[in-house]
């Protein structure tokens, strides 16, 4: 049996269900999502099809190209698609169309037809169109386009068989019969060029008609190629005359605009001929919901309420399994200690790995709930409404309306917030949002704030100070966004023209895919990263070993009668060991950097340990201020000891520093992944550290004047 390879390029506008289609025809589990731009890479799926007539086996590899509204290299994704279609080798274009938005989708089809490649058009989501009362005459459309048209639904599996047949059938034909009919005055000129080539028996890889169209469209690639042909000399005057005629008829000289209008007219004409819409039920429902949800006055309060609900759920409901996980890891650590004894292995597993990884894993319930909520808001179509409501305010600061979701998430935990920034389409919008996310104080910083405000302002003022910290962090973030937009990401504003999709009840499968994917990502990437970081911090705070110090203290402790004396001695020992560890060395070495802010070496070490996780700052301070390691943020004695040894200006500078510098190791690793490289992390690290330093310096000196 003969076996043939067919390479298919899958092209369509965003959200037409390309990936679901691939999922449906092969067993490959690609990532399927409703986030525009999910498919940023080319993926190939092998699938076999045996057609009955000649039963010949096909190996069909499908390249899933990023969604593109048109081939005008407007966004990064569109450029990838365009470059592939023009430069790569493939046999057939498989154009997927959302049946419920036929006209808009046919615009892309018109552009694809001009490629001169064999093509199959797929009317996807045909079941949804039927529900909306839209009837499409696919035979008629096939006649108009000159290519096979197949109705499919990735959801029900309808039409997939026919689609594979159509691909095999088209593949057998010698060339494409695709056509796009232009206005008469353009058709005349195309005809003139075609006969020009015909008379000269010009050898061309693509049909004359397509060659002529690309020449008239002033396609740079084809000009470059033709320029080197001898026929160019003769072609030039003919082409010039043809263009002059077209300008005259169209009444304008922008050839791009002329063809854009032509495509539009073609798409509209084709739609008018093949569609009949009987009812508008679904649309009217959307309209009714919209009347309430995007109301001028009610819209924003409703949205804030929904967000408030989501965060309540995330952090109250999430805290229950979070405790279980925490307790589980504690038990595991206990068990490790009792099984392996006091050795190095036991310490690295219990204190290093289990401590660090446990902290990350315990955030998993939060992340799952949060992403479930966000996925729900996104797939129902509500998120577009939120952008609509907030864009006015956010645009003033150089942010996009959609930036709101990650920013609010950032108050909970910066890690999922970085991931939530994926919903932003434009790269500069996404990067600006990623850069300022750290300014939204995450919940892990609360213990530090509580400890310091309690110690220096008394617990009665702590609430107000906390509020002040949060607000000033958020304001600083908006301010930073503006600066980034003005000085760094200066590319022209992304125009805000977006579709408000119909409200849809998302399938559980889709939601599951999104949440599962995010959770897996979080665990595998952040988990491996934090694992390494935990071991590193554990090592830096436990090495080099100083048996002589331990020995001398153990002797003293044996002599001590009193339990409190013993505890005192043990705390002293830990303090000295910490001072002599690598971490202590680093702290002392870096102290000159922090000296202008009034920080001593202990505060420096605490800040540096805080790079691993903000929770570590409090426990490090506890150890260093000689009070054993069982210190919580509400510990009276730690507060007292801080008040006695740290001057107020330095304490306030410390709070400011904590507010601004990078959140934690896990966040840094996720940032690197989301931003797209370590270079971005370097900017983030240097930028936030410098800002933190400068503002702490200002705070320190201003407060010093008043105290």
């Amino acid at each position, binding site marked *: 049996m003969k076996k043939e390879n067919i390479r298919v390029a899958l092209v369509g506008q965003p959200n037409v269900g390309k990936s679901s289609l691939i999922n449906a025809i092969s067993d490959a589990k690609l990532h399927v999502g409703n986030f525009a731009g999910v498919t940023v890479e080319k993926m190939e799926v092998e699938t076999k099809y045996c057609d009955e007539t000649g039963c010949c086996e096909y190996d069909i590899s499908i390249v899933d190209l990023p969604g593109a*509204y*048109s081939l005008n290299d407007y966004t990064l994704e569109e450029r990838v698609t365009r470059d592939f279609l023009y430069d790569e080798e493939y046999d057939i274009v498989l154009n997927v169309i959302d049946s419920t938005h036929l006209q808009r989708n046919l*615009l892309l089809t018109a552009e694809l037809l001009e490629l001169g490649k064999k093509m199959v058009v797929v009317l996807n989501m045909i079941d949804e169109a039927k529900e909306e009362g839209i009837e499409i005459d696919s035979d008629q459309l096939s006649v108009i386009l000159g290519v096979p048209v197949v109705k499919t639904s990735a959801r029900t599996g309808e039409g997939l068989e026919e689609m594979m047949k159509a691909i095999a059938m088209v593949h057998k034909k010698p060339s494409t019969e695709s056509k796009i009919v232009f206005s008469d005055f353009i058709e005349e000129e195309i005809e003139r060029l075609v006969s020009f080539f015909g008379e000269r028996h010009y050898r061309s890889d693509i049909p004359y008609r397509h060659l002529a169209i690309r020449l008239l469209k002033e396609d740079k690639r084809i000009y470059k190629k033709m320029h080197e042909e001898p026929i160019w000399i003769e072609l030039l005057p003919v082409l010039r005359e043809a263009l002059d005629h077209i300008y005259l008829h169209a009444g304008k000289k922008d050839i791009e605009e002329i063809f854009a209008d032509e495509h539009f007219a073609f798409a509209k004409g084709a739609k008018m001929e093949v569609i009949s819409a009987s009812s*508008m039920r679904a649309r009217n429902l*959307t309209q009714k919901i919209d009347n309430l949800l*995007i109301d*001028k006055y009610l819209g924003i309060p409703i949205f804030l309420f929904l967000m408030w609900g989501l965060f309540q759920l995330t952090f109250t409901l999430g805290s229950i399994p979070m405790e279980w996980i925490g307790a589980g890891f504690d038990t595991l650590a206990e068990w490790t200690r009792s099984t392996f004894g006091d050795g190095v292995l036991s310490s690295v597993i219990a204190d290093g790995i289990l401590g660090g990884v446990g902290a990350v894993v315990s955030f998993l319930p939060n992340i799952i709930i949060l992403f479930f909520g966000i996925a729900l808001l996104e797939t129902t179509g509500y998120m577009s409404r939120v952008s*609509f409501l907030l864009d006015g305010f956010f645009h003033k600061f150089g942010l996009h309306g959609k930036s709101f979701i990650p920013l609010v998430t950032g108050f909970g935990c910066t890690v999922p917030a970085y991931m939530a920034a994926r919903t932003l389409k434009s790269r500069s919008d996404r990067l600006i949002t990623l850069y300022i996310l750290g300014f939204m104080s995450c919940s892990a910083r609360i213990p530090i704030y509580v400890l310091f405000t309690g110690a220096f302002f008394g617990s009665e003022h702590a609430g107000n100070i906390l509020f002040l910290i949060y607000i000033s962090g958020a304001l600083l973030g908006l301010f930073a966004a503006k600066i980034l937009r003005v000085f760094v990401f200066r590319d022209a504003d992304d125009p805000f023209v977006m579709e408000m999709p119909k409200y849809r009840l998302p399938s559980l499968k889709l939601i599951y895919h999104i949440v599962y994917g995010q959770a897996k990502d979080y665990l595998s990437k952040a988990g491996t990263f934090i694992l390494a970081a935990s071991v590193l911090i554990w090592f830096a705070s436990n090495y080099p070993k100083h048996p002589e110090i331990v020995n001398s203290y153990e002797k003293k402790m044996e002599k001590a009668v009193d339990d409190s004396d013993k505890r005192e001695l043990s705390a002293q020992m830990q303090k000295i060991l910490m001072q002599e560890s690598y971490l202590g060395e680093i702290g002392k070495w870096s102290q000159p950097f922090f000296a202008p802010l009034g920080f001593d070496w202990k505060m420096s070490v605490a800040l540096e340990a805080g790079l691993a996780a903000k929770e570590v700052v409090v426990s490090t301070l506890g150890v260093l201020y000689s009070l054993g390691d069982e210190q919580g943020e509400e510990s009276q004695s730690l507060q007292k000891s801080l008040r006695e040894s740290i001057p107020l200006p330095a304490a306030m500078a410390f709070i400011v520093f904590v507010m601004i510098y990078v959140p934690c190791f896990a966040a840094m690793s996720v940032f690197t992944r989301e931003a797209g490289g370590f270079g971005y992390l370097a900017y983030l690290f240097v930028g936030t550290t410098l800002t933190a330093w400068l503002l702490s310096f200002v705070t320190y000196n201003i407060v010093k004047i008043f105290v």
Partner: protein
Amino acid sequence: MKLSDLEIGEKASIVSIDADSELRNRLHSFGIATGEELEVKGHSLAKRTIEIDIDRTLIALRKEEADRIAVEKV
């Protein structure tokens, strides 16, 4: 008059679009083109963003873009 001058519920047809090729293509691909009819469905405070219904699709635009679209009430 401009698209941004329309009030909620008003219907108009597009007379001309003043935009560079990038924005025009974007608008075209959402079905916004000369001669098309649209209806304003809503807007946020101070008309910073405007929602229109065109060819059975709801599209959101920023005021800056809506300013570039000249319309005629129908």
